[in-house]
């Protein structure tokens, strides 16, 4: 099955072509949905086959390259279009195709009746195609192809309902914002790639990483490469300072938010950092930058999530926050923990978004959680699955989120220090709080919607079955990565599986400090207790005594407004970047430079010619005889000259 891995990109591409070219003609939603989902489902089976085959191989043979064709051949630069099938890419592929398939199925129900139904599935398949290229690519160029491809799909799908309003503008503006912000990151990524080629004379993963591990290269070069790559990652994975596009990306349909802006695309940055672990490990300063940025993003987004009132906005900031966790893990050298969190996060966050979509679907497109309440009895399946996902993300022991989050917090403590752990634990607490605030306001308490106009109802089976499967995964998904403390001599299965990928990086990193099991269990107990008390507190406030929340928000009005307005980051960017560019373009580039200089030059040439011709024109009298006189005079002159020169 490893050799058939190209099917995983070919099938979605085929689905995209069929739905994209003939979707309008096909019209039948069942056929379109079937094509869209089946291609991804089959891809998943191929990946699963390759995974099983790889597991059966001895550890040293688990990394295989599948060459398809020679792509670029310019001078010394030779780029093959090849896929790298190893533990890391297989893990990511399983997530992308598995969760992707469920979301495709869900979308058949969610998008039912939409006039752009065929377009939606075409874009989704194109996305899977690009994302699979991103995770399977055997070199930086194929990765970049996928990287840009998912950015394009993200743009297309955020602006999918291009005729709808979104907040103060339109969905197209949100799409544009995502695209432009991503380009800034991509520029950094490109610079990183150039520098890699200059330094290592190759863009192939295996060659670059082998040379990075053995060549004597200055740490400053590594630092520069790592920094550029990380800038790329901050754009794609919505970290400070480029996170502003992700909340606006919620303008897209909810399955898109689940697939692209929660489970898969936004984790591309984490994947890339993890793939280039050896480069990052060789630049300790940048590792610290990654960890600190991740940590700051995590806590900042979590505080914003506390006060948002749009169900998707809360989840969006939660995603930003969780992505921060992943970078924290990568930054302290726990690469496998970051990928582990990518996986569990994909399960529970996709589930949360799909659950939110189910609620929005049942509430006639209402997204304000202040206008929900008491939905538990109307949507039992949605409620149950949403509740499980909330428990998972809050880090309640026994569910997937607990294992990955605990792994990250422990690594932060062991390799980063107490402050890293503390901020991480506070973020975990805030996460538990705002998630249960969301659950309470949505499913418990008084019904705050208008009964005459809104009739909440459970979603069809097409939507609830994927929810149930994801809920199952959210519960059991963590058990592949039981920490060493509990599993004893077997160690952490997930970590062991990915271990060969990170071995070169680990060899370069400073040795882990020695910490006792007791410490780990103690810290775990503290963070779990904090999360549980946050849950209790959130339920106490929002389920029973909503006036407490109001009093608190009034008492800390400044802080509340700061959170509600997202630290005014958008406004600051608007004032510091967007406005100067816009004003400068308008006042100087347009009205001064273009109008006066460029236009002046063009018009000046034209008027010069006009005036000059006006003078010369007078010679042409139109009287044939005057022409004849000139002609004769000319002949006479020529004759004279001939005679004289003789």
């Amino acid at each position, binding site marked *: 099955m490893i050799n058939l891995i190209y099917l995983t990109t070919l099938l979605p591409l085929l689905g995209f072509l069929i739905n994209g070219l003939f979707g309008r003609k096909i019209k039948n939603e069942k056929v379109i949905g079937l094509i869209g989902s089946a291609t991804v489902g089959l891809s998943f089976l191929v990946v699963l086959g390759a995974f099983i085959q790889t597991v059966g191989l001895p550890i040293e043979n688990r990394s295989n390259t599948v060459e398809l064709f020679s792509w670029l051949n310019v001078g010394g630069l030779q780029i093959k279009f090849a896929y790298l099938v190893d533990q890391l890419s297989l893990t990511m592929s399983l997530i992308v195709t598995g969760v992707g398939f469920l979301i495709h199925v869900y979308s058949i129900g969610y998008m039912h009746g939409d006039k752009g139904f065929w377009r939606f599935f075409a874009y989704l398949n194109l996305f899977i195609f690009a994302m699979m290229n991103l995770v399977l690519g055997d070199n930086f160029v194929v990765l970049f192809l996928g990287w840009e491809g998912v950015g394009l799909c993200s743009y297309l799908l955020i602006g999918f309902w291009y005729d709808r309003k979104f907040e103060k503008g339109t969905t197209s503006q949100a799409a544009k914002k995502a695209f432009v912000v991503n380009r800034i990151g991509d520029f950094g990524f490109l610079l990183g790639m150039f520098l890699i080629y200059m330094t290592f004379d190759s863009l192939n993963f295996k060659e670059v990483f082998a040379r990075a591990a053995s060549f004597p290269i200055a740490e400053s070069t590594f630092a520069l490469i790592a920094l550029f790559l990380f800038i790329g990652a901050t754009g794609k994975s919505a970290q400070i300072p480029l996170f502003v596009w992700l909340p606006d990306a919620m303008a897209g349909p909810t399955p898109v938010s689940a697939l692209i802006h929660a489970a898969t695309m936004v984790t591309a940055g984490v994947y890339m950092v993890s793939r280039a672990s050896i480069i990052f490990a060789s630049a300790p300063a940048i590792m610290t930058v990654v960890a600190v940025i991740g940590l700051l993003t995590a806590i900042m987004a979590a505080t914003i999530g506390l006060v948002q009132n749009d169900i998707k906005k809360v989840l969006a900031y939660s995603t930003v926050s969780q992505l921060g966790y992943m970078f924290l893990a990568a930054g302290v050298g726990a690469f496998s923990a970051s990928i582990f969190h990518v996986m569990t996060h994909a399960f529970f966050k996709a589930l949360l978004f799909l659950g939110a979509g189910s609620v929005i679907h049942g509430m006639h497109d209402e997204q304000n959680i202040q206008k929900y309440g008491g939905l538990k009895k109307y949507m039992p399946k949605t409620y149950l699955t949403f509740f499980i996902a909330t428990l998972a993300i809050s880090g309640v022991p026994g569910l997937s989120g607990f294992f990955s989050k605990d792994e990250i917090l422990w690594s932060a403590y062991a390799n980063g220090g107490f402050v890293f752990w503390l901020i991480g634990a506070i973020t975990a607490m805030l996460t538990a709080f705002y998630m249960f605030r969301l659950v309470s306001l949505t499913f418990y308490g008084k019904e705050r919607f208008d009964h005459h106009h809104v009739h909440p109802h459970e979603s069809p089976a097409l939507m609830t079955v994927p929810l149930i499967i994801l809920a199952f995964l959210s519960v059991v998904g963590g058990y592949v990565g039981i920490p060493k403390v509990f599993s004893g001599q077997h160690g952490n299965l997930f970590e062991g599986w990915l271990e060969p990928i990170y071995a070169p990086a680990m060899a370069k990193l400073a040795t882990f400090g020695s910490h006792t099991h007791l410490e780990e269990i103690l810290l775990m107990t503290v963070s779990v207790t904090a999360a549980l008390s946050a849950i209790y507190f959130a339920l106490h406030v929002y389920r029973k005594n909503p006036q407490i929340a109001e009093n608190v928000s009034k008492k800390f009005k400044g802080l509340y407004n700061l959170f509600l307005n997202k630290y005014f980051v958008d406004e600051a960017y608007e004032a510091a970047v967007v406005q100067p560019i816009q004003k400068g373009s308008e006042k100087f580039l347009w009205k001064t430079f273009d109008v006066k200089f460029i236009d002046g030059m063009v018009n000046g040439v034209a008027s010069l010619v006009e005036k000059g011709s006006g003078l010369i*024109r007078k010679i*042409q*009298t*139109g*009287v*044939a*005889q005057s022409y*004849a*006189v000139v002609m*004769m005079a000319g002949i006479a002159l020529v004759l004279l000259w001939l005679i004289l020169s003789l």
Partner: protein
Amino acid sequence: MSSIPIECYLILSAFMFCVGVAGVLIRRNAIIVFMCIELMLNSANLTLVTFSSYLGNSIGQVFVFFVMTVAAAEAAVGLAIIIAIFRNKKTVNIDEINIFKW
């Protein structure tokens, strides 16, 4: 013919040509301008015939036949144009016909 020197023919021809040029340049009536052009053509013909006889080469005389043919055709077309212009403009004065300008 041998009694008359070649210079006489050439001077006559040059004189005829100059008369033609002067007529073309200064006369206002299109018909006269036209006749002056014919005069110039015939002065050229005279030169050709002179040299043909002087050099004992018949090519010059062949040329003259061609020139006469072209002149006849040109006269026909030219007169037709003058008539057409007269119908439109009610004049054949060249200085009144200044439609050659933009």
